[in-house]
């Protein structure tokens, strides 16, 4: 029996479709369904309409967590982008030991976020930490820095720690884009008298825009759901200074056992990510 090209293509894609349905659509539908249930593991499970959403919107911690994610997400995405860009620019120029340096570059990415959190907690520790000690020795501060026990600094601390694990990923994407730019363009620009800054802004930046937006999109999406680095670093504190929406959802499941409210929180997170993604896709298509 002969089958058409389109049917053959469909058959080849079928396993992929199945995986997407099983691991993406099915959990998403389950999440939506659960968000409409009273599912608190104390009372019998019943359909409760928008009660979970109503409870969510009345919960001070939900709004606090949105407030924190509004700082954390842009903070970590920005730092990751610029860190990755600097790294990629440096590595694109290095010729000797290129392979070794590129391998070393991805090491932080390979470190589990929980481990990374513990490492940064130790480094920033006011009691034993190397950073406070170093800053005191060179005279920048005169007493240890209470990074994770000061409300304003704790957010900076988790942004730095989180970005550290994501910079290599961004760096790889940008490096791949940078090395793909034909050298002739730079040489022609040089002949025309363009300086380094002009070459960067008029050649490099426009040509890496696409991959950069993809990197930014992925980093933004990941930063929305970050909690694995925050748990060991601050546990959401001090107070609720680093209590992001992912942490709120985690607490609803692990501390309150309230799967219904957690699912409603998950839907809100999903909507936020879809909103942000749409903006990125709009710019990518322009």
């Amino acid at each position, binding site marked *: 029996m002969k089958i058409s090209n389109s049917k053959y293509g469909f058959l080849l894609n079928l396993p992929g479709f199945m995986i997407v349905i099983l691991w993406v659509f099915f959990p998403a539908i389950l999440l939506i369904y659960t968000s409409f249930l009273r599912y608190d593991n104390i009372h019998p499970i019943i359909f409760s309409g928008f009660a979970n959403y109503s409870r969510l919107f009345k919960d001070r911690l939900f709004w606090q967590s949105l407030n924190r994610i509004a700082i954390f997400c842009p903070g970590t995405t920005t730092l990751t982008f610029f860190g990755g860009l600097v790294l990629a620019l440096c590595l694109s120029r290095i010729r000797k030991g290129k392979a070794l340096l590129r391998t070393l570059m991805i090491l932080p990415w390979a470190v589990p976020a929980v481990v990374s959190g513990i490492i940064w907690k130790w480094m920033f520790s006011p*009691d034993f930490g190397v950073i406070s000690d170093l800053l005191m020795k060179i005279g920048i501060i005169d007493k240890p820095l209470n990074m994770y*026990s000061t409300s304003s600094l704790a957010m900076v601390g988790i942004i730095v720690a989180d970005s550290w694990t994501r910079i290599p990923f961004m760096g790889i994407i940008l490096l791949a884009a940078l090395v793909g730019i034909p050298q002739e363009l730079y040489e022609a620009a040089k002949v025309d008298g363009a300086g380094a800054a002009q070459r960067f802004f008029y050649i490099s930046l426009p040509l890496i825009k696409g991959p950069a937006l993809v990197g930014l999109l992925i980093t933004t999406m990941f930063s929305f759901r970050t909690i694995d680095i925050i748990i*060991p670093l*601050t546990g959401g504190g001090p*107070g*609720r200074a680093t209590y992001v929406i992912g942490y709120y959802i985690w607490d609803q499941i*692990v*501390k309150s*056992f309230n*799967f219904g409210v957690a699912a409603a929180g998950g839907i809100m997170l999903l909507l936020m990510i879809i909103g942000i993604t749409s903006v990125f896709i709009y710019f990518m298509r322009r």
Partner: protein
Amino acid sequence: MKKARIVVSFFLAGLVVGLFVGIASGEAAYEKINWNAPKPIHERIGGPEYILPQGWKEATAGVKKIRVSNFGALKHDPATVANAKKFTELTGIKVELLAWAEAPIVAKTISILAARSKAVDVFCYDHPTTYTQFAAAGWLHSLDAIWNDPDVWKLYAPPTKEGLTAPDGHIYGSIGQVKTMMLYYRPSIVPTVPETWVDLQETARKVTTSAVWGFVFPAGGEMDIIYPLRDMIYSQGGRLVDKKRQRIVINSPEGRRAWKMLCDMVLVDKSAPASVLEYSWMGASDMFAMGKAAMVMSHTVDANRFQDPVKAPGIKGDWDVAAPPKWDDAMPDEYHASYFDIDGYMINKYIDDKHKAAAMLFLDFMRSFEASYRELIIEGNEAAVLAVYDTPAAKKIPAAEGRKIAMSKAVLETFPPAGRTLTDIIKEHFGYAVTGKMKPMEALEKCQEILDQYAVPE
């Protein structure tokens, strides 16, 4: 006619017998175990060698292995490993200990139970608050049968029964080891050990230098701020839980004094660092071990660590231990009390009856004198069975007598099922107080206002 009657009678008799046989065979496997035979439970598990209950073999027939979750790596739990091995020797049932990392252990347990999975037979828990929450969710198998002997409770410290009794009056858990806290101090810095919290505050203020804090306490990890608050409230004879309304009360006179003293130590006396907001109980004990603190309230088991110069390089033998302080001189000596905590096991409701029988048997063994002895002697954990402290080997453990006294005076309060969320609210507001976002007593009142929203209405 007569023949017919005889036939009907035989038929009915057969029916009745069949019914009885049916009921008998419908008996759950774990119900075949007679926990009070060959001896009453307290004698069977309270002697130097554990005695298996009657009927265990029939009840567990066919069970080759049970899977038991464990807090962290097994290399840190040699007593648990030794006890599991001994259980296998006794019963032939292999115990597969699952070394789960501590941070996600509750999340993993929830995932398995919410999915009604049979993947794990026995789960460990680290606190009655967590255990109560699992019991309230209806995920646990009742263990009333293994506690069905009034004398069995006499083997353990008095608060044990309260800690294991769920809000519905049933028991769903058993004991592995127990915990309480004592005051550790460095004699070179603190020549006279403070007997009261009032003295401790004053001493901490006097001995603080640029290199050493007077006193450190945990306020960073989950449930950690509750440790010092409870100690200070119990030292005044107060309590944290209003049982009637299932409400946590921290703005009682005792709670206010405790809250104010902790805040004052950081903000006024500067005898404790602001970084207490980063410390878990382990972090606070690390500070002492590294020589950065003159005093700390820490678990009794830390005595093992502090005596080891490799694990406690900052103190190198310069440490001693004392009973938990009472609040002030006016308080009776009974108030030299810290909190009492239970690390134990609970059984997955969704496993089959034979595995439930095997799991119950394992829990029966793990709460025994024999298993407790290994916990204390091999691993240095506290023994659940108090008589273990009277054995010759127990006299050689660090701070043996103090540990036994601390265990006998410790107080246990079971938190409401939302306990972990409530303690987070306390941690949050203590954070506001220490970081200056709110004034200490304002933070306390605000905190109580939110805690009250979770209580049963009056």
